[in-house]
């Protein structure tokens, strides 16, 4: 088995075992209702995590994701509720703003040659501060378009509901997987994460790819912000604090190497579902407190980091001994 597949398989197996155990304890967890809610409740996280997958695959990191979600929520809410824009035009504006925002971060990372985490940290401060400067309170959104979207639901047998935003996440994952694995841009992203020097010698447009990756991440974060505003029908500057950490965790637990170059978009989906499972389990249990989520995520993160370390260190690329026999 190719070694990049191993963490993914590990994630999938852990998810199946964990889910089976949970179902054995609470048979109620095996229902279309719970599965449908899985998708809805984690939609914004999942969408943001797809963007984060690209960033991490390229060897970077994006700490601004949560702040962009919060900023987008506020921007959309203000445009709709205060300025009277139609939600669709508000969405378009928000996505455009995010694209510019991500593009600038990408430019800074590439041309100033500084670690991505410090640039996106500045981005986080900027987006969070910007949102708070616009408003410090939660801005409710009541627009018929929002009610209409909430009513778009596919009912499943067994009482489950597939919501619009849940399906949006699934669609983003499918498109994301196609882009990552079946386009030239995707191959450039992996190339960058594998070895930027080689990539550039092989003709990968490094600047364009870097900018594209951060642009994609910010746009998806903005989409996540829109989804979040559909989910909560409000915009709040301190919304989604720390979501970047959840997204990073989902990506890593989903089998993507944090140093870049290896991983799958689908893995991130399983990672997000695993995080959702932990949360749902804790809610079902009732006696466990919410902080266990963080602790379990931390433990999973640790396990996967060590696992990757073992898999990727044992046979470092280029070691002759492996094949000489």
């Amino acid at each position, binding site marked *: 088995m190719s070694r990049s597949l191993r963490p993914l398989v590990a994630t999938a197996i852990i998810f199946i075992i964990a889910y089976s155990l949970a179902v054995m304890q609470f048979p109620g967890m095996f229902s279309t209702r719970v599965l449908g809610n899985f998708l809805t409740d984690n939609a914004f996280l999942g969408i943001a995590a797809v963007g984060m997958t690209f960033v991490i695959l390229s060897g970077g990191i994006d700490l601004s994701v949560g702040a962009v979600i919060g900023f987008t929520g506020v921007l959309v809410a203000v445009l709709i509720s205060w300025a009277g824009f139609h939600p669709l035009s508000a969405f378009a504006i928000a996505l455009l703003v995010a694209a510019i925002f991500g593009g600038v971060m990408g430019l800074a990372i590439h041309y100033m040659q500084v670690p991505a985490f410090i640039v996106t940290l500045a981005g986080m401060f900027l987006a969070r501060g910007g949102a708070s400067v616009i408003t410090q309170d939660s801005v409710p959104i009541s627009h018929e378009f929002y009610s209409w979207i909430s009513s778009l639901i596919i009912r499943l047998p067994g009482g489950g509901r597939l919501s619009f935003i849940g399906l949006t996440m699934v669609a983003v994952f499918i498109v994301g997987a196609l882009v990552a694995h079946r386009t030239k841009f995707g191959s450039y992203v992996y190339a960058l994460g*594998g*070895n930027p020097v080689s990539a550039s010698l092989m003709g990968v447009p490094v600047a364009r790819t870097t900018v594209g990756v951060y642009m994609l991440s910010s746009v998806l974060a903005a989409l996540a912000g829109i989804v979040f505003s559909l989910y909560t029908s409000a915009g709040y500057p301190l919304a989604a604090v720390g979501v970047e950490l959840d997204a990073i965790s989902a990506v890593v637990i989903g089998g993507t190497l944090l140093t870049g170059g290896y991983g799958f978009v689908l893995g991130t989906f399983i990672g997000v579902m695993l995080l959702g499972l932990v949360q749902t389990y804790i809610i079902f249990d009732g006696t466990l407190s919410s902080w266990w989520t963080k602790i379990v995520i931390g433990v999973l993160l640790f396990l996967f980091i060590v696992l990757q370390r073992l898999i990727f260190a044992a046979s470092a690329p280029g070691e002759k001994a492996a094949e000489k026999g």
Partner: protein
Amino acid sequence: MVDADYALEARGIIKVFGNHVALDNVDFGLRAGEIHALLGENGAGKSTLIKILTGAYQPTTGQVLADGVPVAVDNPQQAQKHGIGTVYQEVNLLPNRSVAENLFLGHQPTRFGLVDRRKMERDSRDILERYGLDIDPASELGAHSVAVQQIVAIARAVELSGKVLILDEPTASLDRNEVERLFEIMRDLRAKGLAIVFITHFLDQVFAVADRVTILRNGKRIETRALDDVTRTDVVRLMLGKDVAFSGATGVQDARPLGEVLLDFRNYGRKRSVHPFTLSIHKGEVVGVAGLLGSGRTEMARIMFGADAADEGEVHFEGKPVSIARPTDAISKGFGFCPEDRKAEGIFGDLSVRENIIIALQGKLGWFSALNRDEQMEIAGKFGEAMDIRAASLDMPIKLLSGGNQQKVILSRWLATDPAFLILDEPTRGIDVGAHAEIVRTINRLRDEGLALVVISSELDEVVAYSSRIVVMRDREMVAELSGKDINPGVIVQAIANHKEGTAS
């Protein structure tokens, strides 16, 4: 005027960096269907010339012509468009991606805007077949040996460029069978009309595969000749600029009695790194280590110093068995080690010359008996003077010094610890003549002062000059220990080559 014979030509190239002339009016012509070796010592200007041909550098003056037409080559992609492909010493591909993707990256066949993976893998299989590789194109490149990766790199370069192939030390980390396989591919490509530039350090390989040779020295083109017309001695003479002509042993051997045994390695080895060897080293002697790159000579040095732990055999120091599992074990017994890759493992680029000199001594003293600034200055000053380190100030960052001065600093670092045993891995590689002489002088002086030294060098006449014994490494194994009259380049070359090359005239 236009010589259409040349697939690629560099005419009157001058390249100046600051006040250093890297290339001085160099002409270089490459014909279709030839393998053209480019030879020169380190610093002769080979890599500068290659970088100009591939667009990484722009010449200060002069022209690059493809098929007789002047072309501007601004970057590697443009070079590719003019049919020039390059394979670098370290395989510059992506070990994390599939073989097929490495062949096609940036040029993947697409269907409906998506990469057509099936076609890409089918095409890859055809290409790989032509290079005699039967591997799964979908497999990860990093899972294959360096040789296979190297061939994939060549295949990519040829597929994308198709006219000129530049091979920059492609054989550095290959074993002999792999080199042979590479040569077959090169001959095959030559037969198909490709023009190939071949850069290597190994003369045997030049004579085995190349048609013509161009020799650079100090930024000037010395000679371009057909290899049928020259002997090895000619080539070496042209490269070194003097008639060393392998003058044979120098008189160091049996000149003086050896001191007592300092170190005794018995069946000392490490799996996958270096086969067990037995070697005793006396006080006041230099043991030279000869062997090609990848022969296990550096690995031998590393386990002697504890940089890698030995997993077989034992070592006795001054007659007592000791354990050397870490560099600190070695240093506490008075060992010192100047590694081959000065930049990666030797210098602390941002730290000052002073700190670079005292660091090993300070490491030996521990954290709490810190040398103060004055003491540091005194030590650094003393060795700076003794070794003739040319630095504007001892407080300047070492990375601003020339390679030769950096090497002197690293040597000083160990001398400051008052060592009993020094391991020098290629101490004179890539440094200027003056520093070279200084380091050789120092090696002689230290030997006379009673130190034991192990010196690894690929410059045979140099090793011959100061060694009292020479150990020859091949395929990670110590294959010969030469002394007395056997210390001469001819014998060493034969030992390295396992008598295969009768040409070591």
